[in-house]
């Protein structure tokens, strides 16, 4: 259950449309099932009333869609952003990806989003509907006689369990009350991996990355992956899709994907959310974030507009690459 209700968001959207403050709305739309909510542009009150949703499955971060949707609109486009989405929003503005003047941001507080894969683990397949009352999800499935109750906290998406901030860093209007930046355990898993031997880490990643089917969904959804021409679309690169060879390609893809967004990744968690193979991509991104924090000072991409990304910057006193390992070995 979210503090702000679907009805409140719909009324907000409808009134802004009616007042001509905005000409269309970017938000979450009903999918085939209650849990497969997808991004959509709504152009009329009727469309909003019919298909707009706001529930525990609105994980999708709308900010990236502004790149393609904000430029063509007459007047402004309304976008609803959760706290973590606003960081991406700022980062995109920092990179001049769309015109701030074309966008009207309504900030929506968020109680954490559910991961339907975790619900399926509890309730099994064949989910027909999911209703939420307070913080309990009532899941009806084809195979159970009565609805199964699941507390939202048990099925929160990983990124929401480790939410870094409930505070919006950008908006024109805020619904409800804003939260705070949180102390989260988001680097705990990274630390666990770092404590392993190289051998164990290799095994771990081999196991994860070899499942990759190179659907490129992680890249497509990423608000930091906004290159007009992506290296991974280059057919002569030899790495544009999955080949039936050994696993070099997955490693290359994942290292380069994470490297390209290093310092610009806001840790919104979209990549891990969309991966059909459930690969923990956030552990790659967070490794870079953690390293950047350790070596070049605490940095949160998207916290403000106009910050200089750490990998496009330097100081004359920066740590030497060999020093990193030396430091780690002596710490250990």
């Amino acid at each position: 259950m979210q503090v702000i209700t679907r009805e409140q968001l719909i009324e907000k959207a409808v009134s802004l449309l009616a007042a001509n403050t905005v000409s269309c709305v970017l938000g979450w739309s009903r999918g085939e099932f209650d849990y497969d909510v997808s991004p959509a542009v709504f152009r009329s009150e009727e469309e909003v009333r019919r298909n707009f949703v706001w529930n525990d499955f609105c994980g999708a971060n709308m900010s990236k869609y502004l790149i393609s949707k904000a430029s063509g609109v007459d007047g402004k486009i309304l976008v609803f952003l959760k706290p973590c989405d606003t960081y991406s929003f700022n980062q995109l503005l920092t990179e001049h990806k769309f015109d701030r003047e074309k966008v009207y941001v309504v900030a929506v507080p968020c109680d954490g989003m559910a991961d339907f894969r975790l619900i399926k683990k509890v309730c099994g397949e064949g989910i027909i509907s999911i209703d939420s009352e307070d913080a309990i999800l009532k899941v009806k499935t084809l195979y159970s006689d009565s609805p199964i109750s699941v507390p939202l906290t048990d099925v929160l998406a990983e990124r929401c369990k480790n939410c870094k901030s409930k505070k919006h860093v950008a908006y024109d209007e805020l619904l409800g009350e804003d939260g705070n930046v949180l102390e989260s355990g988001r680097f705990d898993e990274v630390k666990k991996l770092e404590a392993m031997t190289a051998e164990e880490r290799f095994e771990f990643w081999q196991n994860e990355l070899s499942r990759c089917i190179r659907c490129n969904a992680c890249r497509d959804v990423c608000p930091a992956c906004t290159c007009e021409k992506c290296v991974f679309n280059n057919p002569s690169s030899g790495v544009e899709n999955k080949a039936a060879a050994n696993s070099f390609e997955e490693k290359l893809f994942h290292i380069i994907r994470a490297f390209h967004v290093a310092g610009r990744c806001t840790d919104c968690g979209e990549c891990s959310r969309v991966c059909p193979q459930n690969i923990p991509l956030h552990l790659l991104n967070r490794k870079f974030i953690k390293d950047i924090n350790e070596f070049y000072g605490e940095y949160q991409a998207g916290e403000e507009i106009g910050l200089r990304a750490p990998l496009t910057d330097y100081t004359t006193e920066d740590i030497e690459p060999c020093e990193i390992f030396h430091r780690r070995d002596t710490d250990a």
Partner: protein
Amino acid sequence: MQMKEHKPLIVAFCCNWCSYAGADLAGNNRLNYPAEVKVIRVPCSCRVNPMFVLRAFQRGADGVIICGCHPGDCHYVSGNYYTRRRMAMLFSMLDYLGIEKERTRIEWVSAAEGAKFAATMNDFVETVAKLGENKRLEDLRCK
């Protein structure tokens, strides 16, 4: 049957203005370093894209070393400062994925440091030789 001794293949990206000249000087002074070190000349150490490093491994390198001017001496003013950050991140990530950290290295070698160039390469080859063949970042199609 006796196993053939494995000779590591090393790719050394050397910036044109310092390290490449350093390698030349090593040659002029008849300092020895193993022939398995393949030098690739780049205009500046910051020309080395992370992709180059991975590509080198893919095509059979057992170790990759990047050499550039000493910090402060880059002929494009600040190139090597960017290299330093980038490669610190990349090497750390490779280590995180379980690729032996001894297989990657950065060294600052000036045009006057022929002896350092030779010593660095000898040391690097020896280190990589101990690790044996690069198995963790290989690509069978390139074998």
